[in-house]
């Protein structure tokens, strides 16, 4: 075992332990702000795993999209809705957590058994290493062109949908639709979707 092998092994062990501990902390910590920052740490450790797998472009995309966009978006959402509220106690919460923990542990055991006992087709063809970025570009513009364009449309739809959903007051434009007078009066009165009694 030369020094490159042991370096890779140590990097993998550090990154995987960060992923395991960080994901547990994201799920289990009480404070949601700590969870959000640890989620960024987990995303960066996953990007490090991609670097170990010779995929520098996907690692950069992971850092940019997940740490730079999704995590910041989650932090902003936490800041916008962070209200200290006493959660109502639910009967049977402990037993529910226990049962779901058992189900998830069983799923974990199943996945571990599958991944260890399966005869994978190893070793495959030699990895192309740093040419992966060029190969991804070729894929995106030849045989995966349609999903690529659909992804752009999906992003546009998600952007418009997010703007429409998060806008503060949604008023119905009634200038050219004269038939919907009732809807205009409804939107002017700003009747909440739920009555006051159900909010209590």
């Amino acid at each position, binding site marked *: *075992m030369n020094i490159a092998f042991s370096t*890779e*092994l140590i990097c*993998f062990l550090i990154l995987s332990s960060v992923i*395991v501990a960080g994901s*547990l902390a*994201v*799920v289990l910590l009480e404070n949601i702000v700590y*969870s*959000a920052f640890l989620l960024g740490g*987990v*995303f960066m450790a996953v990007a490090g*795993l991609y670097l170990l*797998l*010779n*995929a520098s472009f*996907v690692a950069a*995309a*992971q850092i940019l999209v997940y740490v730079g966009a*999704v995590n910041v978006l*989650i932090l*902003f*959402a*936490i800041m*916008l*809705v962070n*209200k200290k*509220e006493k959660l*109502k106690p639910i009967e049977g919460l402990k037993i*529910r957590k226990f049962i*779901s*923990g058992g189900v*998830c542990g069983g799923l*974990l055991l199943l*996945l*571990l058994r599958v991944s260890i006992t399966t*005869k*994978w087709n*190893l*070793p*495959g*063809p*030699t*990895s*192309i290493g740093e040419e*992966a970025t060029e*190969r*991804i570009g070729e894929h*995106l513009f030849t045989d*995966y062109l349609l*999903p690529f364009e659909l*992804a752009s449309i999906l*992003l546009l739809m998600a952007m418009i*949908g*997010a703007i429409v*959903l*998060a806008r503060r007051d949604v008023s119905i434009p009634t200038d050219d639709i004269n038939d919907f007078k009732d809807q205009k009066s409804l939107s002017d009165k700003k009747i*909440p*979707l*739920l009555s006051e009694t159900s909010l209590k």
Partner: protein
Amino acid sequence: MLENSIGPVPLQAYLIVAAFLFCTGVWGLINSRNAVRVLMSIELMLNAVNINLMSFSSYIDGSIIRGQVFSIFVITVAAAEAAVGLAILLSLYRNRVTIDMESFNLLKW
């Protein structure tokens, strides 16, 4: 079986890490009462799937790397999902003034 890999890290190690990450995400998805934490658990699960795709792409499909292309698409869809999910969460918070998942029972029965 574990020895016939290229590098010092076998493929199965990546699969085990991804399996653990996925199960943690499932548990958090079921048990979180904060709606933001539910979205975070979904992101964890998507990352686990991405680790699987990337490790298969590197170990078994090393010359064509279709798995990397797939994981780029998964990252794209995850970004769109996070944006729309958080927007839905904000409008829910304006209407019900809580983010407790147990109080979002509008469509229940």
